[in-house]
């Protein structure tokens, strides 16, 4: 059985990617299971989708813990622990990431044992087709799939968007497929789980804890600040202090997150650990003192948390 996981952020089309690949497998005569998975987090937060495909009926269900292929739509995700990009990755796992950096670099950086491939980061105008690109790249690495089935699946899955958008998605999916087709067959079906050689679960007898502990109540203030929502950001706002005229009541009040603090000298500061990159501050700054640079550029300059 193939066990494949797509990682991205809310709004990046990972559900679509999973569905396109699922349909491609289905058209190729496979039994298929595909599903997205997301929690409370919203647009911008890490999510994943997964696809199982097999020539025999699939009884497994739920999250894939031993993936044969991982596709990453956004090269900031591997650094986010909560994204779980590397969960279960082993020797058999092929890793495909949208990145302008070299595959070898990712292999080393993430200490990956399996093969690593990259697809170039999409241009701004192509970003909305990211799901199709991920599906196309994944399909290219699988022996049993081909470009015709892929295109048919894109057309089927995205039909409600209208022919113009369907064609644009097909173009992106084809390009991703063609960029990787020389590695066709790189990803292999993983085997079943052994019923004899396995690590037994350490079941216990749950103690009866006092209600102070065992009720789902929080007895501490503002614990949400432990969550680094700054990791949702793909664009990095910067305040040019020379142009800031300290009308903090605009940017600081309008920031929906409350992530712009004002210091004693009445200067605003962005809390990058929590700024989600909505860019309301940039849009509202009367002196245009706030600009945005791509997050990777900011990271390179040591600007990120």
């Amino acid at each position, binding site marked *: 059985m193939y066990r494949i996981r797509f990682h991205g952020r809310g709004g990046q089309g990972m559900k679509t990617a999973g569905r396109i690949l699922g349909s491609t497998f289905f058209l190729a005569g496979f039994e298929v299971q595909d599903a997205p998975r997301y929690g409370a987090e919203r647009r911008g937060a890490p999510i994943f989708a997964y696809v199982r495909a097999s020539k025999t009926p699939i009884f497994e269900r739920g999250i894939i813990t031993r993936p044969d292929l991982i596709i990453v739509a956004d090269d900031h995700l591997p650094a986010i622990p909560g994204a779980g990009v590397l969960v279960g990755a082993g020797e058999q796992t092929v890793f495909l990431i949208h990145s302008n950096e070299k595959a070898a670099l990712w292999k080393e950086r993430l200490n990956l044992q399996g093969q690593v491939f990259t697809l170039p980061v999409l241009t701004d105008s192509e970003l909305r087709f990211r799901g199709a690109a991920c599906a196309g790249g994944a399909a290219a690495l699988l022996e049993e799939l081909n470009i015709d089935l892929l295109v048919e699946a894109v057309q089927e899955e995205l039909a409600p968007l209208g022919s113009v958008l369907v064609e644009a998605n097909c173009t992106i999916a084809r390009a991703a497929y063609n960029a990787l087709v020389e590695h066709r067959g790189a990803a292999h079906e993983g085997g079943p789980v052994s019923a004899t050689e396995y690590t037994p679960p350490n079941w216990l007898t*749950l103690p*009866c804890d*006092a*209600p102070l502990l*065992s*009720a*789902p*109540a*929080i007895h501490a*203030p503002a614990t949400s600040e432990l969550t680094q929502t700054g990791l949702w950001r793909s664009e990095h706002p910067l305040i040019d202090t020379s142009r800031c005229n300290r009308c903090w009541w605009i940017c600081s009040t309008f920031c929906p997150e409350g992530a712009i603090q004002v210091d004693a000298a009445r200067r605003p500061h962005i809390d990058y650990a929590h700024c989600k990159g909505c860019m309301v501050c940039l849009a509202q700054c009367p002196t245009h003192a706030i600009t945005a640079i791509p997050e990777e550029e900011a990271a390179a300059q040591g600007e990120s948390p």
Partner: protein
Amino acid sequence: MNRKLLTGNGAAAWGARLARIDYLPAFPITPQTEIIETIGNWIDNDALECRMVTMESEHSMLTAAGAAAVTGVRVFTATSSQGLLYATEMLYTVAGWRVPLVLVNVSRGISSPITLEPDHNDVLAMRDCGFLQLHCATCQEVLDNMLIAYRLAEHPLIRLPVLVNLDGFYLSFTREPVQIPSQAEVDRFLPPFSAGSIRFRGGESLSEGVAVLEGSAYSYFRYEAHLASLQGLAVYEELGLEFGELFGRQYTTLECYRSEDAEIVFVMIGSFATKGKEAVDRLREAGAKVGLVRPRLLRPFPVSALRTALAGKKGVAVIDQNLSLGKGGILLTELSSALYGIPGAPPILAGFVGGLGGRNISNEEFFEIHKVVQRGVATGVCPAPQLLYTDEELRALRKMQSVARAAKTNRGGGA
């Protein structure tokens, strides 16, 4: 000594009064209304210091009850039947908050068809929500168990709401002599509620009822509430003993009536169990070795006590005053799972459904139940489930059906 004739509703009201409840969100519904009217009168006449608020629904009533309990006050509320079902969502929710309060349910059959007469389908529909359930057989037991219920709910290991159940009409509107303990005596048994960590206060942080979006943590919280509920068995035994020492009326999780040397045992809950006891006495006089076992707690379910009480019996008749459509009696199912695979489990476990919508169960029917189980014991074949319903009843019903049909055919011809 203050012994008075009280209805079951009156006994519930006295229980609340003696428990010195702080807060009563209310909503009227038959046959419960008398409880809140009685307490309302006491409040109006300064006999009780309590805030009573009539809400716009039972759903809101339970919400206000639970929310007030989070501030750390002692809360009481009461409902019945449709009202209990309307509040279902909040019974689960409030139990999940792990706050103590006492809810009286006056059992009444559920719509459709709508009825005013009692059976246990309302309260048993709340079996799984996390409220502990105490089922009363007499008006005295209602008052006494109200007091025990607060101790249970507020117990530091439990901290769960408790539902005290009494049967509509057979208890709610039926007067019996009830010993009303003095306030001073009750204060010794039930001191003021100390909320501890449950409190909304300025200058403190408490987020209550928060979401848990992950199966593992959710499992923990739910199972902890289950474990807390299970503590209720031992705690009830302790409290029942303590109550007995103070008031002379001792309570245990099971009432075992002449069951020790019995070969055949009736198992039932609620006020109809006293009818069962009457039948046991008559059967005993006739030489039958028969007894009755009545769980006072349905949640937590006294599994171990039941196993002990029923071990070695030849036959058990479960008389269910409820019906799980598509399955049968609920108590039968509960008991089967408790006894399965246990050494000495009674070989014959027979189910009888009776008393639906307040239908009487006669002495003769108890005698016949005994005979059916006896036959099962002799042949080794477990009798099929039996609805207590007679030929006379069906004939009377057929008459009603003919009227119901005739109304249509007569339309053209006038009255």
